[in-house]
């Protein structure tokens, strides 16, 4: 984020297991996330050490981080409630982990009611076990009837669970609305195509390039949080292209569960465009593709997937071919595009058209009633009418989606 808030300063900390080499990608990703949340990073501290039960990382490293006088300490590694308590108590500093940082970004970008509920559910899912653990810690020194935590604090955990159940119910309703909307769009003859991929891969830019719209697209993680849909026409087929929230490595399962209604836009699509950033070094590109495949698996995707390698404009042809060859097992036949330059978009459109299920041909008979005439009029919009003959009844031969035809009770396949 270009507009860093000067008050928001942070030091990034990461611990690696001694057996593994230091991974600069993780720290770079954490830096980007901190930037997206508006933090000014004062220093980055890494350590190879077995997990410290009290502080996650060595005490000396935290003291070193505190010497920069930051507002917050941001850990890459997940922190247990005990560790948060110990660090806050010993070093009088606010401390968050990577997951909380992601939630902070989500909370700042959530604009729709659905997104706000999803963020709240994710936060509560994260907080619930932490609160329970904190209560257990508090109760450790208590004696029956003397210096107890009290009924108010006792009920906090139950309040959280209650709120979570309420949000889940609301999200379920919204999920049904989304399902109905998708069904309605299919009945209108649209094919549903989703853009998925690692965060900051250029999904929104690709949506803009393909549809000529002006959705907000920035060079920062998690610019898009709520799905954005735009229409386009490819070789006579009407397609709705949906931009979705980006994936990230090591995403906790409950976050995916919280964002289920948003991710349904991917899992329920007719075709998924998996976008990856080709300008990344090979190892990172591979890792991001693997993380994206894992996220797609968690979403329950079973529709065809086209891998789109974006941002190829900055690469030489030899480098492009070398990378393409190396990731062949993950993306055997990718489409190379540059959404910002418009390179490869024609090929992508052609590939989308090829991978969409071919439209079926149907013959239906409609009686001469006012309702049938309105149905026929509607069919002109939702399907391609091949022939209309006026006999004892109206006989309509058409090509279109089965959902569009299923609306008519007299549907009859030849």
């Amino acid at each position, binding site marked *: 984020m270009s507009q860093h808030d000067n008050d928001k300063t942070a030091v990034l900390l990461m611990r690696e297991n001694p057996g593994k080499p230091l991974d600069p990608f993780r720290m770079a990703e954490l830096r980007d996330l901190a930037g997206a949340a508006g933090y000014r990073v004062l220093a980055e501290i890494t350590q190879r050490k077995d997990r410290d039960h009290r502080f996650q990382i060595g005490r000396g490293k935290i003291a070193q981080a505190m010497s920069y006088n930051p507002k917050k300490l941001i850990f890459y590694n997940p922190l247990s409630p005990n560790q948060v308590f110990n660090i806050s108590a010993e070093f009088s500093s606010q401390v968050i982990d990577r997951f909380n940082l992601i939630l902070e970004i989500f909370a700042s970008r959530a604009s729709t009611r659905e997104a706000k509920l999803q963020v709240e559910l994710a936060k509560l899912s994260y907080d619930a076990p932490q609160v329970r653990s904190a209560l257990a810690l508090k109760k450790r020194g208590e004696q029956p009837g003397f210096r107890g935590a009290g009924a108010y604090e006792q009920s906090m955990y139950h309040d959280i669970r209650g709120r979570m159940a309420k949000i889940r119910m609301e999200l379920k309703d919204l999920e049904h609305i989304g399902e109905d909307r998708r069904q309605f769009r299919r009945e209108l003859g649209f094919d549903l195509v989703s853009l998925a991929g690692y965060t900051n891969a250029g999904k929104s830019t690709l949506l803009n390039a393909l549809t000529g719209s002006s959705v907000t697209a920035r060079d920062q993680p998690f610019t898009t949080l709520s799905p954005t849909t735009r229409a386009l026409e490819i070789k006579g087929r009407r397609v709705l292209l949906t931009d979705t929230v980006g994936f990230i490595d090591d995403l906790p399962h409950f976050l995916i569960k919280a964002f289920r209604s948003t991710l349904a836009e991917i899992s329920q699509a007719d075709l998924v465009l998996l976008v990856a950033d080709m300008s990344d070094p090979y190892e990172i590109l591979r890792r991001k593709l693997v993380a994206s*495949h894992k996220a797609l698996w968690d979403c329950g995707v079973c529709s065809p*997937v086209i891998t789109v390698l974006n941002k190829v404009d900055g690469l030489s042809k030899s480098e492009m071919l070398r990378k393409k060859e190396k990731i062949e097992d*993950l993306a055997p036949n990718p489409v190379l595009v540059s959404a910002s330059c418009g390179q490869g978009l024609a090929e992508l459109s052609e590939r989308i058209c090829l991978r969409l299920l071919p439209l079926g041909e149907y013959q239906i008979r409609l009686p001469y009633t006012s309702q049938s005439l309105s149905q026929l009029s509607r069919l002109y919009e939702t399907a391609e009418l091949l022939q209309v003959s006026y006999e004892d009844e109206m006989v309509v031969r058409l090509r279109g989606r089965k959902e569009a035809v299923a609306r008519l009770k007299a549907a009859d396949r030849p």
Partner: protein
Amino acid sequence: MQGKYQMVCAVVSARVSPIFIEKIHSVRIVPHLAETADLNTVADLTSAACMCLPGTIVAESGDFYNQEIWRVKSILGREFKYPETLAERTAIELAHHISLAGRRLIIHPGTDEDWTK
């Protein structure tokens, strides 16, 4: 079972593209009664089940106690990886279903009712 571990290893030999399983060549189920369920037992069982099958072994990291790939590779003595693509995960899911069904058949032979317990 009788103080021992009733283990069942299911192997799905398949040709995969990143998204879909293209073709399943064979499915093999190998039961094994073991004293312990340590890494060596799992590795031996996996080696025996994958014998004579070409290609790379793909298994979930939990099956090999989250050991690093190079370590599992050197124990098995052949190409090994954890799942990366959707198709590899689908194949593993398939193998899990088969092994679970095989184990139920061994533990509750000839009954239709008790297998859910």
